[in-house]
């Protein structure tokens, strides 16, 4: 394993220390391990907290700031944060108007956030949870833990964040977040697996001409192994999977997301193919974003996310945001 680290056990803590040094506009509690806006808590504002395992940067820590998250709670690499940590962040952002937890649908994340929400309730903080489960590669049945939360997390955090910033009430912020999630679908391909610092070897090994279809963002193998095909075909298959699973008539938000090790030159090529195919399918694109946003360490891979956008969502998407990882209008 080759990484720019000192000791696998200290990666998350030391990276957080670096984030704190690089972004004086944020406040990082290195003890309890969470990141908050420097001006938190803001009286009367609904707090937005998200988190999950580390290794998905800039998600979530890179999305803390005006117009998006009030706090992020990073766990160890690919490991959900613990309830104490989530509780501490929840208390740090509670301005009396309640707190929304944005939780990606993984057993560990769900349980730890649930325990934290119970602890917060004990302390008199109202918590609403928005569960993100956009990954259509996973069947949504009683035979699975349900769909995973992937690319749509960014959309939920941006749009709910804008709603909270403009003074939305707890129920409103949670409602728009849930609406975005319900309107979204994602599908991902991996060319290589990422390597966690602790494991020191790739999560899976792929032959030179094979890829994993339907992967999540934790280095887990996907739904099936396939032969590598031209980008055009992969993009079409991914979009077909999304368009089959949910109804999209447009206008949509389209996120072309790299999983960490994919160069921008490829992501833009993918965007070109995706926009051409959506046009062919009669789906208009209202807004788009291309980049490495919801990553899986150094995995070479990409995910596509569509969100059937209402005017309200587009208005909130366009609202100013000022975070290390996403910034416009500010």
């Amino acid at each position, binding site marked *: 394993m080759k990484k720019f680290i000192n000791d696998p056990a200290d990666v998350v803590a030391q990276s957080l220390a670096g984030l704190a040094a690089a972004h004086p506009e944020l406040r990082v509690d290195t003890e309890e391990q969470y990141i908050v806006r420097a001006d938190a808590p803001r009286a009367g504002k609904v707090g937005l907290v998200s988190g999950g395992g580390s290794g998905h940067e800039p998600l979530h820590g890179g999305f803390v700031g005006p117009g998006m998250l009030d706090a992020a709670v990073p766990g160890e690499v*690919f490991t959900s944060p613990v309830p104490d940590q989530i509780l501490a962040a929840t208390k740090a952002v509670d301005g009396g108007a309640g707190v929304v937890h944005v939780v990606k649908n993984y057993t560990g994340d769900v349980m730890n956030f649930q*325990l934290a929400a119970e602890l917060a309730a004990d302390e008199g903080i109202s918590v609403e949870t928005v569960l993100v489960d956009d990954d259509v590669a*996973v069947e949504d049945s009683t035979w699975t833990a349900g769909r995973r939360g992937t690319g749509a997390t960014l959309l939920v955090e941006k749009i709910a964040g804008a709603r909270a910033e403009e003074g939305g009430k707890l129920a409103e912020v949670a409602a728009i977040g849930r609406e975005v999630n319900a309107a979204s679908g994602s599908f991902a391909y991996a060319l290589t697996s990422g390597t966690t610092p602790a494991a020191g070897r790739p999560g899976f090994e792929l032959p030179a001409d094979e890829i994993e279809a339907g992967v999540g963002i934790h*280095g887990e193998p996907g739904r099936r192994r396939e032969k590598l095909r031209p980008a055009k075909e992969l993009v079409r298959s991914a979009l077909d999977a999304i368009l089959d699973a949910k109804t999209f008539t447009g206008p949509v938000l389209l996120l072309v997301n790299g999983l960490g090790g994919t160069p921008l030159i490829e992501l833009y090529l993918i965007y070109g193919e995706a926009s051409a195919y959506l046009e062919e399918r009669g789906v208009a694109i209202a807004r788009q974003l291309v980049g490495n946003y919801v990553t899986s360490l150094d995995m070479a891979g990409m995910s596509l996310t569509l969100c059937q956008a209402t005017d309200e969502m587009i208005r909130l998407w366009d609202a100013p945001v000022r975070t290390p990882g996403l910034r416009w209008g500010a």
Partner: protein
Amino acid sequence: MDVTLAREWMRAAAGAIAADADLLTRLDAAIGDGDHGVNLNRGFTAVVAALEKTPPETVADVLIKAGTTLMSRVGGASGPIYGSALRAAGKALPPAAEVQPADLVAALHAGLEAVRKLGGAAPGDKTMVDAYGPAADAFEQAVAGGADLAGAAGAAARAAAAGAEATVPLQARKGRASYLGERSIGHQDPGATSTALIFQALADVS
């Protein structure tokens, strides 16, 4: 079981998990995200430290402190699950320095109930329930048959190990492995495997 034995159990469990952390991580890499060994190792190391710092005076408190520590140090799915199992087990025990095998039967079942309540997994879903359930039953039966702690713990350990192995042909329906669908078949569940290690640790110290 007295409070010393309870602490030895936790220490032995920590040792077994440290020794097999790599195996657990590899099992988790195959059908999960490759952190189970690291997660539990971090947690049980903290458990041993916590029990040493302020040694509890009852068996119940050993288990509750261990559970609370796991819950606040492990994260992932296994942190809350093992955490609530141990906490529920501890809470089901009488507040005494020494408890009887029959008390432990009730505690083990209370822990199992907590796991199933929190995670919703049924037997056969390819989770730690598939090791924990048979172990709790074997323990109960052994005690009913007149076995002492050592005998019951040995029976539980054997049942847990068999239960863990029996997860190999199963298709996962809970946790990360369920995302894999049929591809989860043919691999042993990491959580069931760590559960077997923890019951084996109990047998070893009893």
